[in-house]
């Protein structure tokens, strides 16, 4: 089948700054202490299975996914549960967490049974394994993978898309993973395809990773996997934009990829799936890029979850100058953090340090209506007009101008010559509109309850009014 690539609307070309792309992945040495949050995924925190003072082994389940949308958490090494407490998360909130003190032995627990002949296994067994191994979307959103891979039967899935785009500047973790473990990634894709029962598998990689494109093409020659080299344009790796680029299908607003027959998985996630299925290894480590000009020796490491950012920076040789910003993730959508006590979780794709010269600080000015945000918004919104509405707190107006479709990719803020904090405005409006809707829903429910109660009371007080019914 010929490779047809469609062009998504908008996008920007920020500096690539992928300085770590030639640095091979190094396994981080064992630490004395890990801080393991019980919520590394979208959904409810996992339910704790261990207590303070328990001895645990590497890969042992520490918390399970009994809640509706959740994912289990496994011990990154063997040792003692020192404390059940809370820890600082990326978003600045306190998360329930356990402190694991390593015993230095790194003794593995009884592994999940490896399924080397997964080609013959039932999809349900493979799915159960993915759930038990605690796999979540490792590209950033951290949505439990098992849910993504079990669409309701009325949604017919015909295309599996693997996201190897890594369009965020600076990050190189997925790139290195594709170069160093192509076979595992291919196996992971095929496992996903078997679970979903799809034949068409598309792997999208940006052209700036031509070595990865060549290698994956080489390795997938005898398979049904199609490797697609994509133009370098942020946000090529955004789910809706990637689907459109590869299939020309548009995810409906407010809908999901499965509504148009697609499931998207990140390369790091499919790698983790292959490890869980073939080797029986649950997800307790990941590849993270630790990069930025202030670092002594930036690179890509395989960290165990629960590694504090400080240890990651220490591994990268510390700094040669004080950074002005430290970002969890990439520079376009990552979150600026203020503490290095935050632990690496299942979705920490990168830790980026920015120097004073790289951090632009500017005064926000009035919108001059240049329209560049319009030209770059991949969701085809009008960020400039929205931001003025939001400054005026006209949230209902902003909603009718589709603010809820904003995916916060950051193109508009990046391009704005007036330095307006457009994404921040969108976030504010989205939070406010959501709150308004919830309040309206609650008010409606309360009103209905009250009316039902009054009707019941009335019926009770005046039985004579309806004598004929007896």
């Amino acid at each position, binding site marked *: 089948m010929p490779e047809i690539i469609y062009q*998504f609307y908008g996008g*920007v070309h*920020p500096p690539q700054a992928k300085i770590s792309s030639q640095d091979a992945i190094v396994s981080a040495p064992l630490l004395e202490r890990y801080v393991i949050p019980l919520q590394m995924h979208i959904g409810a925190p996992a339910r704790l299975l261990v207590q303070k003072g328990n001895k645990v082994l590497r890969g042992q389940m520490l918390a399970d996914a009994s809640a509706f949308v959740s994912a289990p958490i496994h011990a990154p090494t063997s040792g003692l549960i020192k404390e059940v407490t809370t820890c600082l998360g990326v978003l600045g909130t306190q998360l329930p967490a356990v402190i694991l003190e390593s015993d230095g032995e790194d003794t593995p627990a009884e592994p999940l049974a490896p399924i080397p002949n997964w080609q013959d296994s039932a999809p349900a067994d493979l799915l159960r394994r993915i759930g038990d191994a605690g796999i979540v979307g490792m590209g950033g959103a951290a949505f439990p993978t098992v849910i993504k891979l079990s669409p309701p039967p009325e949604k017919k899935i015909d295309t599996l898309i693997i996201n190897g785009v890594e369009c965020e*500047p600076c990050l190189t973790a997925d790139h290195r993973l594709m170069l160093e473990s192509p076979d595992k990634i291919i196996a992971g894709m095929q496992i996903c395809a078997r679970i979903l029962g799809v034949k068409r598998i598309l792997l999208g990689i940006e052209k700036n990773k031509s070595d990865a494109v060549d290698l994956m093409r080489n390795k997938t020659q005898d398979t049904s996997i199609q490797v697609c080299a994509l133009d370098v344009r942020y946000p090529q790796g955004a789910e*809706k934009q990637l689907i459109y680029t590869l299939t020309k299908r*548009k*995810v*409906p*607003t407010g*809908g999901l990829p499965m509504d148009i027959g697609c499931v998207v998985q990140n390369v790091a996630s499919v790698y983790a799936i292959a490890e869980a299925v073939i080797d029986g290894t649950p997800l307790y480590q990941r590849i993270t890029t630790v990069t930025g000009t202030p670092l*002594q020796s930036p690179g890509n490491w395989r960290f165990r979850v629960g590694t504090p950012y*400080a240890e990651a*920076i*220490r591994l990268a*040789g*510390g*700094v*040669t100058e*004080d*950074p*002005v*910003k*430290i970002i969890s993730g990439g*520079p*376009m959508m*990552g979150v*600026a*953090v*203020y*503490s*290095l006590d935050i632990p690496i979780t299942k979705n920490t794709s990168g830790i980026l*340090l920015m120097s004073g010269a790289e*951090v632009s*600080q*500017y005064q926000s*000015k*009035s919108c*001059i*209506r*240049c*329209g*560049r945000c*319009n030209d770059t918004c*991949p*969701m*085809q*919104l*009008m960020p400039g*007009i929205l931001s003025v509405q939001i400054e005026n707190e006209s949230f209902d*107006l902003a909603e009718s101008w*589709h603010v809820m*479709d904003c995916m916060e990719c*950051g193109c508009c*803020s*990046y*391009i704005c010559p*007036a*330095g307006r904090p457009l*994404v*921040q405005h969108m976030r504010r409006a989205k939070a406010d509109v959501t709150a308004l809707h919830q309040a309206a829903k609650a008010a409606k429910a309360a009103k209905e309850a009250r009316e039902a109660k009054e009707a019941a009371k009335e019926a009770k007080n005046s039985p004579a009014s309806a004598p004929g019914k007896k």
Partner: protein
Amino acid sequence: MSENEIRMPDTSRLIVSSSPHFHTTDSVSKIMLWVIAALLPVTAVSVWHYGLPALEVIFFCTAGCVAVEVLCARLMRRPIEINDGSALVTGLLLGLNLPPGTPIWICLVGALLAIGLGKMVFGGIGCNPFNPAIVGRVGLLIAFPQTMNTWMTGPDAYTTATPLKMLSDAHLAGQEGATNAMSEMLSQVSYGDWLLLNQHGGSIGEISALALILGGILLIALNIIRWQIPFFYILTVAVFTGLAWLSDSSLYAPPQYHLLSGGLLLGAFFMATDMVTSPVSRTGAIVFAIGCGIITCVIRLWGSYPEGVSFAILIMNALTPLIDRMTAGKPFGAPKKKGLKL
């Protein structure tokens, strides 16, 4: 390297802000500087041709606009934002829209109208509904019609009859007079000279069509203005006047006459493209430009004013919010037929 040599970051002064953490190096002042750069060729040609009378007008309009903005900002107790360069652009455009030799005090009144009434009363940059330079020009046109309609054709040579004025007078003279005037007028015109150096009289900025086009192309190449506005504006005028000419060439001038005369090129490349007062989307820009073209032609062919560019742009400025609403696209993936709140 030993363990104790590792320097860890100082986290006490980290900046925490909303993503994205990269930002373009472009800024409002850079955009304005490019607009000024694009206006330099025509400014240079006019000063070279007219000499001091043009230089004076341009200087006092520009200085006047900056001074009025500073004054207004002071009175309004708002930060002075002349560094963004937008007052300079307004002043330069106002100067280029006046006849060479306009008295200095009229230039200063124009600056007051442009920045004071056209921009600062609405709250400064980004808030004005009308193009400030055009507000200034139209204000002067109404207040001082005599001055605003006396043109230099060269050093010490004056005329009150620009090509468009002659055309307008010819129309008013009725069928026979028009036919005579038209043929005489067209016989005087050399389009090549006109393109390079306008000898027929006009505003300072109408001196050289070529210099205007060069500047416009620079702005389009830099993606500072939307190419749709000059393209569809000029195209509309060409088609409209072309049809009129085809219908009766004894009464109507040929389209190339209309394209080169008056402020069409200056308006299409530099005035209608003002970002603040034109629609945000590219579809909206097309609607806006076609509207400008039609109104310009209607005024030129049938109105009592010889020139319609300023009025056309002002009227379309007023319609810009409406155009914005009507041309706002659907988000990616939205179902068809989902209108906006009007």
